[in-house]
């Protein structure tokens, strides 16, 4: 595992007890911590890519992490075009990345 959470027990900031949450990403369960964004949950689980690009079908995930680049957009609970790095994750969130916006013609 390469991308990962900072280990809770040894984190110098002295975090309180984290509240685990589970979201679904394209059908798979991913576990994170309450307070993380959707992108944070996925990256902490070493999921670096969660959609494919419209024209070339290339894998993409987060790039700028601060809402500028729109690389990380997902559908959340049926809501389209949500920047995963800007949306706090809630337990039970269903994240889908229809290759959709996508797969139209060139």
């Amino acid at each position, binding site marked *: 595992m390469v991308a990962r959470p900072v280990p809770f027990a040894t984190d110098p900031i002295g975090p309180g007890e984290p509240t685990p949450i589970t979201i679904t990403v394209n059908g798979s369960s991913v576990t994170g911590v309450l307070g993380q964004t959707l992108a944070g949950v996925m990256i902490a689980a070493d999921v670096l890519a969660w959609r494919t690009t*419209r024209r070339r079908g290339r894998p993409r995930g987060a790039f700028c992490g601060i809402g500028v680049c729109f690389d990380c957009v997902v559908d959340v609970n049926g*809501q*389209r*075009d949500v920047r995963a790095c800007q949306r706090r994750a809630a337990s039970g969130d269903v994240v889908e990345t*229809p290759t*959709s*916006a*996508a*797969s*139209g*013609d060139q």
Partner: protein
Amino acid sequence: MVVLDRGAAVSATSSAGEGNLLVSDKAPGPELALATYSLELWRNLPAALAEELDGFTSIEFDPKGGLVVATNADESAGLARLADAQRAAGVRAQSVSVAEALEIEPHLTPSMTSAIYYPDDAQVQPAIAAEALLASARAAGARVLVDTTITGPLRDAAGRLEGVTTNHGTVEADHVVVAAGPWSGEVATQLGGTLDVRPRKGWLLVTTPMAHRITHKVYDASYVGAVQSDSGARQVATVIESTASGTVLIGSSREDVGFDSSVDVAAWGAIAARAVRLMPTLRDTSIMRAYCGFRPFSRDHLPVIGPDRDVAGLWYATGHEGAGIGLAPATAQLVTALLLGEPAAIAVEPFSSFRSTLAKVA
């Protein structure tokens, strides 16, 4: 042949429109004749340009057809009358049932009252098309001078125009054709001519790329009224269509505010409010961009194609309001025929710069 532009070519009206090639919004008369002729020319252009300009981006010509939708009884009656008159003039205008309309455009509101399908309406990417035409002109020997502003006329002793002065020196020419869109009136005045063409501002909204395409050009029937309107107050009529890249263009507004390009969210709101009425399922679509442009408006809604009344050597190809891209190839043919003294393919008199309907009201 020299093409002058005071900024970059294709940087104003030509790159701010939807690329409408329409017959549906035109009542029988000279503009419909011009549009019909122009559409014939457009159909051959994509292949001709692609062959001539190796490696040039596609102009995205798409003969997708237009669907005009009425949402109340008054609109339905008006639309039916218009379609009857158009059919009598040779336009293909097919009445479709609400069920059929929903089948071909599922985003439409089921509460529409009627719809007419116009198979000949088409779309083009206007900026790419204009650049392709310019590249073709260059290949034929035209010089293109950008960042070049006209400062006045060059006249011979008899007063005939024989060129222009610019911020980069003089440009001599046997003929000067003003095709400066909404700025044509100003340019004409600078050159001693008489032309009443003014700007009509319009906004368009652009969505993020969508999976589901809107496969036709879709209008609400009030669009047909708005393009014929004399009012300077803001009007909004809905035009919705997908582009080749998957975004959806949503228009459009029309108002007389001079060349004021400042943001006005009320115009966006008005466009959005009508659009969600016509296509309720677009409610949750993200709008990522808005852009505005200025249409060249002439008071009787007809373009001005032909010579100036007084100044020999001064010609006009302008005043097409929102239909400039669509009417461009036919306009070019007519101007060329007039310049060369050859017969034109259709009647040119209705577009004369000194027709009575352009005369200033006292």
